[in-house]
């Protein structure tokens, strides 16, 4: 049975007498002044807290508390930023730990996830769709739901307060996502390249390594960045599983600054700014793939 029934766009052109609409392309409407004003207002509302935080990071402590609030008329200072990176800074070790944990968990998830995704893509595995759904389902629930069981397991395994423990948890959470995203990328590459390589005389693995891997680099990069962003921003497990200030990751360390009698808001803001920067940078790098990640699986190839 033929399936070539083109969408009605052409048929609606009016040539068969169906409609009286002329086949003229519409020009984009220039937004009305009201729409522009509304959007501008929304932008201000959304961005204001971020802007305020940025300003707080570079204001003198006095200016931070000034009333009325000083929006533009203050002298900037790098005091707080220096404090973030000073040897006795309460947040510096947090940043160090975050870097270690995020990098390690991403590497593990990628090294395990890419071959798994390749296997799912190339081989007829029994109950493949069910398996993949199960894998994806781990992302449906908020991490908070499993925090307590994990805490109890780690306590028994002496993994509490250790970076290794946290790396394991993050890798476990990143792995399903890595598999899903990479499978999408691998599906896009025709299996014929590998088949040609096998007929040339390479083993299956050699074929994958020589032919498919080079083409997957962009996909792996994008997936790794997503995993990095998740691990970097993760807060719940970090707070629950690590209480030792030396082993804390950055989010927990920054949160730890708030509390007690006086709060060093300048340091808090500066830390938050430094913390947000890598994520913004990486998100910018993978912006093209963000859409792919969201719609994966929804649209059949």
């Amino acid at each position, binding site marked *: 049975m033929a399936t070539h029934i083109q969408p009605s766009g052409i048929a609606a052109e009016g040539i068969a007498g169906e409609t009286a609409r002329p086949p003229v392309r519409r020009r984009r409407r220039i937004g009305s002044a009201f729409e522009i004003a509304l959007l501008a207002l929304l932008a201000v509302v959304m961005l204001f807290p971020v802007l305020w935080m940025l300003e707080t990071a570079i204001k003198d402590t006095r200016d931070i508390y000034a009333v009325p609030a000083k929006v533009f008329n203050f002298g900037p200072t790098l005091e707080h930023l220096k404090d973030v990176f000073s040897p006795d800074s309460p947040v510096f070790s947090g940043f160090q730990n975050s870097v270690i944990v995020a990098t390690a968990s991403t590497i593990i998830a990628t090294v395990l996830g890419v071959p798994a995704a390749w296997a799912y893509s190339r081989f007829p595995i029994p109950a493949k769709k069910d398996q993949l759904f199960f894998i994806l389902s781990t992302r449906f629930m908020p991490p908070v739901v499993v925090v307590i069981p994990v805490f109890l397991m780690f306590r028994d395994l002496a993994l509490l307060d250790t970076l290794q423990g946290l790396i394991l948890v993050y890798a476990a959470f990143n792995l399903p996502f890595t598999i899903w995203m990479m499978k999408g990328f691998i599906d896009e590459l025709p299996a014929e390249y590998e088949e040609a390589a096998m*007929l040339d005389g390479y083993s299956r693995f050699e074929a994958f390594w020589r032919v498919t891997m080079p083409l997957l680099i962009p996909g792996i990069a994008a997936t790794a960045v997503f995993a990095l962003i998740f691990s970097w921003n993760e807060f719940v497990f970090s707070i629950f599983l690590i209480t030792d200030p030396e082993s804390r990751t950055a989010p927990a360390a920054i949160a730890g600054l708030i509390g007690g009698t006086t709060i060093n808001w300048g340091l808090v803001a500066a830390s938050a700014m430094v913390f947000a920067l890598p994520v913004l940078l990486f998100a910018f790098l993978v912006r093209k793939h963000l859409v792919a990640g969201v719609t994966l699986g929804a649209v059949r190839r």
Partner: protein
Amino acid sequence: MTSAVVASGISKAFGDVTALDDLDLDIPEGAFFVLLGPSGAGKTTTLRVIAGLEKPDSGTVHLTGIDATGASPAERDLAMVFQSYALYPKQTAAANIASPLRARKLPKAEIDAQVQRVAELLHIEKLMERKPSQMSGGEMQRVALGRALVRNPRAFLMDEPLTNLDLKLRVEMRTELTRIHRSLGRTFLYVTNDQVEAMSMADYVAVLRAGRVQQVGSPTEIYDRPANRWVATFVGSPRMNLLPCTVNGRLDGTGWSLPNPGFGLEGDRPALLGVRSEDLSLDVRDESAALDGTVYAVEPLGDRTLVDVEIGDRRIVIKAPPTASLEIGQHVRASVDLDRIHLFDADTESAIARR
């Protein structure tokens, strides 16, 4: 003559779709062997099973007498040209062609020599440093061919390699492929759904339908002595005309009747008369073997004119000389070359032999 490839009893299903159904093939060494059939007939699957890219559910594959059913593609020493060419996108043409030799760890000097030889054979010397994205379809096809030819494999497998080319290029490449085949003398296993391609290139044709081999033979055999109605109508353009009839002393159909030139069929069995458009003539010599009809359409093609004629409730096509001049609605009489007609059993669809 030894067989390059023998496939026995191959069955393969994908889910609940049967791709191959107890298929047998015997491909003689050095032949240009064509697997012909419509899409979905199982030709590509057969090729892939022979190449080792698919595992059959049952059956064996023997390559020059050795059981290769369990062997990996690399071990089978076959070269394949894919329909999509499957050139490695990040490598130059030279690197693509050299790939099979590099996989076998041949010394660089020898690799370069072989690549050069193939480049000259296919006239693609100037493409060597280009990447696939910088080549046209025809150029990619030659590089893909080069990658297969650079080795000396047991056999060459080709999966509809000319389908994606435009007509002119396709006709050129056909001639070139047959020329290469003749000069190499190696076994070529070629898959296509284009019966003109099969007829013009093949030493032998295996006609496939729904995973089974319908008939194997030379192009002339398939054309002149089709084993069943399906092969008869698949090969030959325009399609063979089929008219339902009953056989007794004569062949009787709706609105026509012909003498029985010796077909052995008992009683009033329902049958199908098959006659090719070139075996009908508007120049009626023998009134006793003629069909009467009305002209439905006249199609002048330059070197011939096709006349569509309604006979009873059916329509047939007659190949007439280019000067034929007829009007639609006109009554015509066409004589039938009784030596060249076919008869098929209406139920089994097999060809009925002459006594």
